[in-house]
């Protein structure tokens, strides 16, 4: 299988601000890729360039084997971050309109739209005006407008933001179904756990640069666990004794727990044994790094403090919840 998308040396500036700085990327056909990174990292700009809505200042983009998305627009389904509906238009008419704008044949389009609305429990909304729908319902309609014309490539910018858990599950199922049908899917999120749950490949973008591009398993293997979480039995231990051990890098209290960073050269299982010997513990475990941890680690490597990075990630997630 070839690559659905190839970016090489893509750069985009808005006035003095560099939004994307030399991104190289290739996304194989049929893969499910998550774009992650904090707000303002350059995810949306990259996606807009892939969609040929914006044009790069430098570099090459090829989409579905064509020099630009313009030539393969009808084979792409796109759900932008900034999305809306014609408020006065009826849901059925809107979906038919969008599908046909995307090149779906007019024959049988109504039945198809009706069938899809049924699948997302909106069958009774076919004749309703878009403005009568709730936010979550609108989002489902928008999702449908991206997949109705059966595209080979799906690009979804923050597809799950602002959904309640029930609808989130519904959309995730549809999403995975599209993936199983062999469609290439790219979606962006700054909710790292979503990417962790769904993607088989992660592209991390920070400050306009690609800082990570790998499969989830590979990433985990690279960032092997070097942290042990300990819950001391008497709850009063401050971990001073541990700090003096040569194999301990640092000890950070986290509520009831102590987070113990390991120096290179010691196997985690040896460390766990040694800790258990040193103090009575009610719980001890090897801490698997989350994508957030990995992101923080990478950002730290670029000279940012762990706190600022975590804060910016959480602020982004919070504003998302409030904003939508």
């Amino acid at each position, binding site marked *: 299988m070839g690559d659905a998308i190839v970016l090489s040396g893509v750069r985009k500036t808005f006035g003095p601000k560099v939004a994307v700085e030399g991104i190289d990327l290739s996304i194989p056909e049929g893969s499910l890729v998550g774009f992650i990174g904090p707000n303002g990292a350059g995810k949306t700009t990259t996606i*807009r360039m892939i*969609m040929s*809505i*914006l044009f790069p200042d430098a570099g090459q983009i090829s989409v579905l084997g064509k020099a630009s998305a*313009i030539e393969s*627009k*009808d084979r*792409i389904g*796109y*759900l*932008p971050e*900034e*999305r*809306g*509906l*014609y*408020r*006065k*238009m009826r849901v059925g008419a809107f979906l038919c*309109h*969008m599908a*046909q*704008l*995307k*090149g779906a044949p007019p024959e049988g389009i109504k039945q198809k739209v009706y069938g899809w609305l049924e699948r997302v429990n909106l069958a009774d909304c076919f004749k309703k005006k878009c403005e009568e729908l709730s936010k979550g319902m609108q989002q489902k309609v*928008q999702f449908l*407008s*991206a997949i109705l014309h059966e595209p080979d490539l799906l690009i979804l910018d923050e597809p799950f933001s602002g959904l309640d858990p029930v609808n989130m599950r519904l959309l995730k199922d549809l999403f995975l179904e599209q993936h199983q049908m062999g469609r290439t899917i790219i979606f962006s999120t700054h909710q790292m756990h979503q990417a962790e749950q769904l993607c088989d490949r992660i592209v991390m973008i920070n400050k306009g640069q690609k800082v990570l591009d790998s499969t989830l398993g590979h990433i985990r293997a690279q960032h092997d666990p070097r942290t042990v979480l300990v819950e001391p039995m008497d709850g009063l231990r401050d971990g001073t004794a541990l700090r003096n051990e040569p194999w301990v890098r640092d000890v950070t209290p986290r509520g009831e727990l102590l987070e113990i960073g390991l120096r290179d050269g010691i196997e985690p299982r040896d460390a766990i044994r040694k800790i258990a010997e040193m103090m009575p513990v009610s719980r001890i475990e090897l801490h698997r790094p989350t994508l957030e941890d990995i992101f923080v680690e990478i950002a730290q490597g670029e000279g940012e403090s762990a706190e600022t990075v975590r804060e910016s990630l959480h602020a982004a997630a919070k504003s998302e919840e409030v904003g939508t």
Partner: protein
Amino acid sequence: MNKVLRVAWREFTSTVLTKGFILAIVLPLILLGMMIVLMPLLLTEKAPKVSGSVAFIDPSGEVMPAIREAMTPEAILKRQDRREGDLREALGRAAPKGLATDGQLDAAAKSAIAQSPKLDLTIEELPADASIESEKEPLKTGTAQDGGRLALIAISPTAITRQSTDEPFGSFELYTKPKLDDRVSDDVRDVVRDAILNARILAAGQDPAIIRALTRVDRPDAVTVSKEGEQKTSKWEILLPFGFMALIMISVMVSGQGLLTTTIEEKSNRIVEVLLSALSPMELMTGKIIGQMGVGLTLMAVYGALGGGVLAIFAMLSQISPLNAVLLVVYFVLAYVMVASMMAAVGAAVNDVREAQSLMTPIMLMVMLPYMLWLPISRDPNGAFATVLGLLPPISPFVMVLRLNSTEPPPMWQIPVSIVINVVSVYIMLRLTAKIFRVGLLMYGKPPNFATLIKWVRMA
């Protein structure tokens, strides 16, 4: 192309099927219908009755006989009949040939006369030496509706005979009760005036009938003489070109405004990015412009048919040449695309309708300009002023329509020249506005000013 037409179709239906637009189409029809049905009903309403007395002080005693004669009920009725006749004639003159049947004119005159109050007046002849001041007293109580003395007329002692030929004749004074129908006082005034005239003519030893015949000269209407034939000049000839210009102007305004609204909606509701994933900004803009052009043409067809219907009633349809009708559509398209491309750019640049106001002002001024220049242009449709404006975009299409339908159409060569000039300027405008449209659609935040727009044109 298919996608462009889909966008156009949505644009068209989403504007034409709104309540506002349907109302704009239906309302004039309803108003016209109401005028046809309700006007006669309103006109046949009973005229008010005025009864009371009119007091006269005639020191010479020479005027009263004529007044007495003129104030009998029969004479009053006769005057009303005569006025009806005058009105009938006046209506016939005002309306161009074939405006309406004679029966319609009679009915119109009759119904207008029926409106005038029924007079039931008696004459009070006061002594020649009565005091004007004390005779005014009865006028001060109540209003004309209460009856009693309605008016006091004091004729000057020198009204008929003057002291010497160097002095002017005296006149008369008219005092009335409050709220007296002005048609009553007019009638009384006319009666006294005529009576005084008659008395003077008799005093001079002449026959009033002969003198009246001698002094009457009817006022003629101007007749325009040209190679095509002779024609009576009427107000309609100056109104017709204005009607044409108003038609093109309203259509351009409504459809341009529609384009602005839908563009702002697409941008502020964030639909635009989904649209741009399906088609290019140029395709989107083209589709939108075509769709709203359909709206403008629909409006023009409906109002044009309405106007044509009115002209057909007046048998004036022949005054519109088919060429001018075709050119009306051509100039509409040119004027519309010019305005629409600017509207699209403004709609794409701003975040909401409020922000659009400041950028819209120059466009609105541009469209309104020919309206303000209507009179100077139609007075001299082939003068240097009108000729230059007719070739000067962006107001050229409006001015050309005005000139084409005036009594002196411009030379034929100016038509293709103005069309070519407009096509070129529309093309340039489209190039510029398309850039603003493309950049503006995805720009949110600070409302742009003209400097920003120029920056975007350079950027794109």
